[in-house]
């Protein structure tokens, strides 16, 4: 199965993309992040939250959707 990862704001300059697909077997957010940190080591130093199904989730959440977003601090308005 594949998981679609979306990056926003500042993070797109770390990953050099706004979206990417990673091969994925059932895991928690925290396990996924370890994978992403290997791919994009500079992500580790960035401040962000993870959203699943349009809601911010904690790191021990089991990923059930096929899309996930990494959201740095919001700056709307």
């Amino acid at each position, binding site marked *: 199965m594949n998981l679609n990862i979306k990056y*926003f704001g*500042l993070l797109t300059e770390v990953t050099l993309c706004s979206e990417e697909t990673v091969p994925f077997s059932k895991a928690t957010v925290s396990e996924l992040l370890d994978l992403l940190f290997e791919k994009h080591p500079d992500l580790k130093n960035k401040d962000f939250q993870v959203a699943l199904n349009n*809601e911010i989730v904690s790191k021990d959440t089991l990923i059930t959707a096929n899309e996930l977003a990494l959201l740095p601090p*919001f*700056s*709307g308005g």
Partner: protein
Amino acid sequence: MNDKKIKNVFIEGAISSEFIGRSIAKHQTKTSIGAHNIFLGQVRADEVDEKTIYAIEYTAYKDMANAKFHDIREATFKKFDLTCMHIYHSLGTVKVGEICLFVFVSSPRRKQVFKALEYVVEEIKAKVPVYGKEIFEDASHQWKVNS
């Protein structure tokens, strides 16, 4: 999740003063309204290290943002006695002096609109995944941070 239809809050580019004027005009048939309160966010020509901001380029996690705008609307109607509420946010480039956020609340009585409007604006800043890339006149940039 609420089953009411989720609206699209985003407008491409700046929000014009004519759009705001027309939005006000549309409320003149709602004769139970006694007070309107409008918040407008305008792009500031801030100076950073001797460079001046020229525009902000807005992006958003659109699906989640519209869902959050929807949740904020529902919560606000529950908390305050409002007749109506409208929220518009820009996506893409908005130049200095132009308007990027338009929040409009209306109620029979004034006390409610003051409280409701501030609540809505603070909720938007805190909960909606929108990002501003501040573009300087020399085309360099920095990412906007809300205070």
